[in-house]
């Protein structure tokens, strides 16, 4: 079956966007993937061996976390697994001053750089 690798993780899969493995369950497929590309393991799993909270694995269009048999779910060659890191965010509810302050505290050089930033183009400049 094919496992689709997201762009950030291709550096650990020899730049392949799709890795083909032989497996009969979701768990076997993921094991085969990390056996082929061991560097992927620490990016997919926590130290406790569980999928990292922001890593989603979909069997076709289903999140494996919500499948009745989870990683023991049977698969065929026609199925595909997709690894999808989550995407979310949003502006702070505390306003610019507060979030800028937090940013400076956490990442001082970068935050200051951002505050001072000049960008090459914006229509409303």
């Amino acid at each position: 079956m094919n496992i689709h690798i997201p762009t950030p993780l291709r550096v650990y899969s020899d730049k392949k966007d799709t890795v083909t493995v032989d497996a009969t369950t979701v768990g076997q497929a993921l094991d085969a993937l990390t056996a082929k590309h061991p560097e992927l393991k620490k990016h997919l799993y926590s130290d406790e061996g569980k999928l990292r909270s922001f890593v989603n694995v979909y069997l076709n269009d289903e999140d494996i976390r919500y499948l009745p048999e989870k990683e023991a779910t049977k698969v065929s060659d026609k199925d595909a697994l997709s690894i999808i890191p989550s995407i979310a965010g949003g502006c702070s509810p505390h306003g610019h001053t507060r979030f800028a302050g937090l940013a400076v505290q956490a990442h001082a050089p970068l935050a200051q750089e951002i505050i001072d930033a000049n960008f090459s183009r914006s229509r409303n400049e």
Partner: protein
Amino acid sequence: MLKLNEQVYDAIRRHGEETYPHECCGVLLGQSAEGVNSVEDAVRAGNTRTDSAHNRYHISPQELVKIQRQGRERGLDIVGFYHSHPDHPAQWSPTDFAEAHWLGCSYVITAVEKGAARQTNSFLLQGMTEEDKSFANEQIEVERLQVAPVEIAELEAERCR
């Protein structure tokens, strides 16, 4: 650097105006090479954070899987994401940083003030791991669409009628 054409750039900004006072969000499809994320298309996504859509966004992974699949069929990868900050600056927030996991991708933010798109900035999520990631300012290069002389003449004639 983030490269995109004027049509895509305008579509991203327009999306933020349309969803105001809520945050919009979407996916940037294109190609990544030699430090440049080149965008071919911006795909709108639904914001699942209906409980707090004015200051949060979240794209359902299921929708992301579909967008990634459609991109793959067109030979395009996910190279970035965009969202709006209604009545907030176009700077990444602690929430944006905490929830950013696509290393090497561009995160585009448009400030929308009272319904009108203002500044648009891009930040590259750099680093090799989740533990050493950081946002870096990223230059945006907008390619202007060329209008053929004959089209200009037609527009001019239309204007004079």
